[in-house]
């Protein structure tokens, strides 16, 4: 069966284009007159978003100055599947045993991973979820892998310290987790890591992770790999095995 290249949202009938959105406007709606104006404002926004016709199904005053809306409508936009681009996963997902096997046959020793959060970011939850034995999302962390040696430097490590510790530990890979994104701190910190290792004599794999990174921006930030929201330890381990052992190993 061939898939149509042009699609619309599906409510309950092919091509009906029906969607639901919710938003708040800074307009009052406690009084009946105000409410009518508020709903008109919501319809206007829905129209400009491409919803035609649109129907305000829920209007709720949030305090004296704001109103929350739920709107259903038919979008006029078309989705062209032939124009969709995705970055394919360049490595296959492996079991811990397969990861261990690949590392052992490729390196003949343990793979060394140094992890940290850098800058002012004190949130170790991400790096710990990937590194701690306990892991995340039902997968054990990298400490669980027999052929991986983990050095977790914890929170708020200065980038020069990260570089010197990584060289001292002869790290094969450096994992940097960034949760805080105010004023794009995660991006500037990632760039700083990329730059700092740029001159190192034996540059480890630089891997950055955090909920607000764009996984396709690795080159831009000067790192080798970016993991976004929802990454599991198994994905990171599989990538490491792929990167050090190659996909053919």
């Amino acid at each position: 069966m061939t898939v149509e290249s042009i699609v619309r949202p599906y409510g309950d009938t092919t091509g009906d284009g029906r969607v639901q959105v919710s938003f708040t406007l800074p307009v009052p709606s406690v009084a009946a007159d105000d409410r009518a104006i508020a709903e008109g404002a919501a319809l206007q926004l829905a129209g400009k978003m491409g919803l035609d016709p649109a129907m305000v199904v829920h209007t709720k005053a949030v305090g004296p100055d704001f109103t929350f809306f739920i709107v259903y409508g038919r979008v006029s936009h078309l989705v062209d599947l032939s124009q969709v681009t995705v970055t394919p996963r360049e490595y296959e997902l492996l079991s811990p045993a397969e990861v261990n096997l690949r590392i052992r046959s490729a390196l003949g020793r343990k793979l060394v991973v140094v992890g940290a959060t850098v800058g002012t970011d004190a949130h170790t939850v991400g790096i710990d979820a990937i590194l701690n034995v306990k892991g995340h999302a039902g997968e054990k962390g990298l400490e669980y892998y027999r052929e991986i040696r983990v050095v977790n430097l914890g929170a708020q490590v200065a980038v020069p310290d990260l570089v010197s510790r990584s060289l001292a530990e002869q790290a094969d890979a450096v994992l940097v987790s960034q949760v805080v994104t105010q004023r794009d701190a995660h991006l500037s910190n990632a760039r700083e890591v990329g730059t700092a290792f740029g001159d190192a004599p034996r540059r480890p794999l630089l891997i950055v992770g955090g909920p607000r990174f764009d996984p396709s921006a690795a080159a831009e930030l000067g790192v080798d790999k970016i993991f976004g929201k929802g990454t599991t330890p198994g994905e990171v381990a599989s990538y490491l095995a792929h990167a050090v052992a190659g996909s053919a190993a």
Partner: protein
Amino acid sequence: MSGKLNLDPSKVALARELARTAGEPITRLAQTHTTVSIERAVLRMAGLDGADADGMPWVNRVVDAVRESVGLEHGVALPAWDAMVRCGYPDLRTLAEQTGQGHAKFRLPAGADAELARGAGDRAVERGVAVIDAQRQARSRMIAETAEPRTPLIYLIVATGDIYEDIPQAQAAAREGADIIAVIRSTGQSLLDYVPEGATREGYAGTYATRENFRLMRAALDETSRELGRYVRLTNYASGLCMPEIATLAGLERLDMMLNDCMYGIIFRDINPVRTFIDQRFSRAVHARAGIVINTGEDNYLTTADAVDAAHTVIVSQLLNEYFGREAGLATWQLGLGHAFEINPAVPDSFLLELAHAQLVRELFPGAPLKYMPPTKHMTGNVFAGYLLDAFFNLCGFMTDQSILLVGMMTEGIHTPFLSDRDLALENVRYVRDAAGQLGLSFQPSAAVTGRAHQVLDEALGLLRRIEGEGLLNAIADGTFGVTKRPPDGGRGLDGVIERAAGYHNPVEEAFR
């Protein structure tokens, strides 16, 4: 023991006894050591505020200078007030400025000089303690004039980074139904070895805890409390390297609750375990005096460990927090022990397990204002399913008579809550409260629920026995809590720990006696 779970009273007593045994060596450690932050808290209690031109607080300057010249083994008070008396400085600020310019010289006074210094220091600190006492009375008066909200108290968070944005948001949240406002701190403040000064408008994912920010927010909430006829409580964080100082500032500025866990900083912020336990004891003594309710952080264990497998670690930590809290002088009504609704919803009977855990905590700590935290780990981005999960959390909270309900957000893990997220979350709480707030009265747990509660208590006893055998510091080093290994000589802040000499004098501890 009465209650729905028919817990074996001898097991409960044994659990408390084992927690005491595990905690006592730590208490001795705290009694025989001080830290730079405890000594800075002494100066803060005596009224030393402000910072030098570089923004470094004067309390840090003075304590560092005393440490360099005569050491802190006898405490900061004797050398500091000896210099005050000897040089005739009119106030601590002058002493600090003279210290900053390198003019003040410190020595360890002896004989009559020591008595003079001791008397001057004690009097200065007593004035600060009197401010804390007055603030405690002011709180009682405010509550009497307005009204005590019904329980559970509804706890909402603000965290813009800018105190002047936080204030209207906090006031709006209170008007929407919040009984407690928590101002999340800027990330990383826990690892600063000083307390920033003044009103702050920039923070990372939160707002700095400063004395002026405390004062501004408390004043705003006083205004809102009068407007609403309901006392709105203010919460901040006495944790991290400056725990004793922040506790002191909280008492002086009438904060009502403080996050103050015995192990959180160790496990989750890699702060040195010894430093943490010593600072913790002093900060809890301040909270006890100030009538502040502490909130402990056991919910955090369940964000890194599995909520079923690690349920007993929550109980063990609560028992330790209870022991340390009581030992430091806190009354039962001040022990806001924490726990959370974090079981994977895909687990069969997950809600029954949550009921078992929450009811167990309720029955183990009958008089404590338990703080119940909403799901975070299994909030997937499906806001509709998340809203349902939050409703079940609310239901469990009402059914098991929790005291403080942190309001769950359907957008947890996506962004800082929208105005509408908070409004919908409060609508959820109101619906469950109005529809099923009395359900606890007609709820009798089944054998599955009581069996699970008994199992968790047994597992907690097993872990407490292990800790008794190897020692609490070793257990923490082994990764017993939160699955993170934290050795006693690792982490930040150990260099700020000083063993007390025979003549050690701390006027705050004297005033609390």
